[in-house]
């Protein structure tokens, strides 16, 4: 686990990473440690997960591209809702994040 952690804990300019409350999220059922205030995509990247979804037309994988919520490349299915921009959506304890295929499926019952 530690080995794959790509967080920058020590930084020559920014100093040590501030202490934050530890929480857990699930990526395709896999339990991951996250810290309060982190963005979903950042937690996944910290764990070496860069493939966030597969596109509709050419079935190609996508990851983070703009990191500020504009390009919508990082969208995933979060708590049953597809197309959530994970680079600007903070994690919540117990959040369920799923790899999105194409337009995704509404896991959340909508009717």
């Amino acid at each position, binding site marked *: 686990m530690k080995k794959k952690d790509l967080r920058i804990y020590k930084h020559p300019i920014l100093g040590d990473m501030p202490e934050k409350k530890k929480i857990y999220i699930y990526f395709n059922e896999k339990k991951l440690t996250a810290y309060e205030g982190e963005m979903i995509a950042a937690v996944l990247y910290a764990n070496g997960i860069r493939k966030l979804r597969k596109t509709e*037309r*050419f079935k190609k994988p*996508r990851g983070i591209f703009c990191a500020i*919520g504009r*390009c*919508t490349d990082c969208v995933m299915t979060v708590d049953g809702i597809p197309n959530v921009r994970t680079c600007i959506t903070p994690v919540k304890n117990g959040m369920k994040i799923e790899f999105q295929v194409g337009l995704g499926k509404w896991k959340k019952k909508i009717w």
Partner: protein
Amino acid sequence: MKNKKIICRCKEITEEEIIEVIKKGIKDVDGIKRALGAGMGLCQGKTCTNLIIKIINRETGIPIDKIRQQTSRAPVRPISIKIISE
């Protein structure tokens, strides 16, 4: 798909498709949007507009400042129905 260059990342429109439409006489961003749907995806053309302008410029020789650009309409970010309808 191999070596095809995607231009509109959302709708996965390729450079080839755009060039084909330019050859049919479409020479501005809005026209390409209407003909192909490029720039009509989730991000609403935020990433591809500049690339499309460059392709039009390269294919037609029209100076970049003369190529008509895409318009913008509210909302500039996706906003859920339950919020925006209030």
